[in-house]
């Protein structure tokens, strides 16, 4: 019982940690970067904002933003679309 409560507490702490919202925004913009690579820059900005607020997983968001920018550039280049629409 005690371990369940501890686990739940940890989960709630993880969800409500400072910088989690910026982390979420970073992931959203990173996903968008697959179609509009320029939005990956916004993803990187939010990843950095997440870092400044002390969220420990900010590196994952930054890596995803950069990786999605790369994929987005490859995809748009392959489809001959402009990187900055």
């Amino acid at each position, binding site marked *: 019982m005690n371990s*369940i409560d501890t686990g*739940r507490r940890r*989960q*709630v702490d993880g*969800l*409500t940690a400072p910088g*989690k*919202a910026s982390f*979420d*925004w970073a992931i*959203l913009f990173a*996903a*968008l970067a*697959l*179609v509009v690579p320029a939005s990956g820059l916004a993803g990187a900005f939010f990843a950095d904002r997440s870092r400044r607020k002390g969220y420990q997983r900010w590196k994952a968001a930054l890596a995803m933003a950069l*990786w*999605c920018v790369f*994929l987005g550039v*490859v*995809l*748009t280049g*392959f*489809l*001959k*679309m*402009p990187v900055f*629409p």
Partner: protein
Amino acid sequence: MRVLAPSSRALPRIALAMMVIFVTAAFGAIDSAPPAHADTAAGTVSGEGGDALNPVMIKLLHDDGAALTPDFGSYTNVDVDQAIADFVGTAPNTFNADFVVTERPLTAAESATAAANGRSFVYVPFAAAPVAIMTFVPNDTYQGSQTIAPSQFCQHIDLTVNDLAEIFGYDTTSPFVNWGDSRISSCTSQGATADPIPITRWGNLDPTMENYALLSLLNSTPSALGYLQAGITQAIATNNAEQTTTSATSENWPYASPAIPGGDEALLGKILQLNPLTDTPSTQAALLSLGAVTPVSSVWTGAPLGVELNLPTAAIQNAQGSFVSPSVVSATASEADATLAATSNPLTNNLVTYNPSSTDAAAYNTYLMLQSYLVIPTNGLPADKATALAQFIRFVLGKTGQADIESFGAAPATPAMVAAGLKVAGVLNAEAALTSTANAISATSTTTTTTPASGGGSSVVAGGAGSSGSGSSSTSGLAFTGSDPVPLVILGTALVVIGECARRGLRRRSARS
């Protein structure tokens, strides 16, 4: 506390499950949408149209060929009506052309047919070619020798609308006797006067916009219309096997003889006796149809087949009163007086209206201006074709494409037309991207193998574009073209905002407990 604890623990799982259900349903909706497909060959962007801009289209597709890879661009002259019929389709999702080059907007019936068959489209104005009145008349330096040189033809005879009407119609009181008639002005280049040989009006037996343009000009004044009607009546009386008994504006040539089917090339081939191997016109006067007068696209009067034809053309009186011959300069001037429609209705958006100007001395007669449009489908194309078409539009409206157009004697697009066309190219790219993504998702959802995140991302690129070429005619992703990515962005934003709200709720609840 006892009631809240289990539901709080289950909350993330429920949220996750709902998200999975929602995403699955969204992609299911994409996949279950009715498929649209073209019946044109996979990997070939098939264009059709009339002959007015045929040499230009061949040049444009040739110069852009490498950039269209892996697709191949083609253009076939099948006459403008047949091209549009192929484009609008014969049955739902059954089309025989991927794009069309037309010099007229689609009729209401054609648009309705396209809509009924599941195809929406937009216009991209990209070139404006004058309809030249070719006057194949020697000047007075020609003394009846066996051969005739290009310099021995009468260039730019000044013709009013009534002159044209009397030439293509009939003046019952005092008909033109021949090209030496005193009412016809003299040549403006070498040789002072035209050779007094009989006037022979030639026409195109196919429905063409060159025919339409000339007939609309002859219908523009009552006196000209009277001459035209008299000409048709006289043709009936003299057994000239008339095509029609009315002088109404039409794509069909009113006289049956001499008239040649197959477009401008076939018509000029007969008049000039073009060598089928070298495309050079004959210099044997006896073989040539001297005295011929016919409307042709000015694109065909220069060097449409790589060999200089240097055809003599008339200078037609414009609305200002000046006599202007067909050229890039006069076409551009006429185009500058035109207006480009900007409406929310794709059936009328980007259509160009030529306005006669009473002050523009340089403009070619507006009735004889042909505005060429690329008619582009905005749904139903495979990703590769949509991408290739977008690229082609950018090329056509770009520096090289516009220079190609000018080199044939047509006016390039105005900056407003270029901007409108580039917008269409962007729409096509977005469609292609969505189609590719939908295809890739469809492909990955059927193969339930677990792949690393990066590997999955790469397969989206390759699968989306690579498979679209071969599987183009029946892939379900085609129905996705025309969808808007904005709803997905809004959905993502909403999810993040909902997450933030839930987070604040959790914080409050934690603080209370």
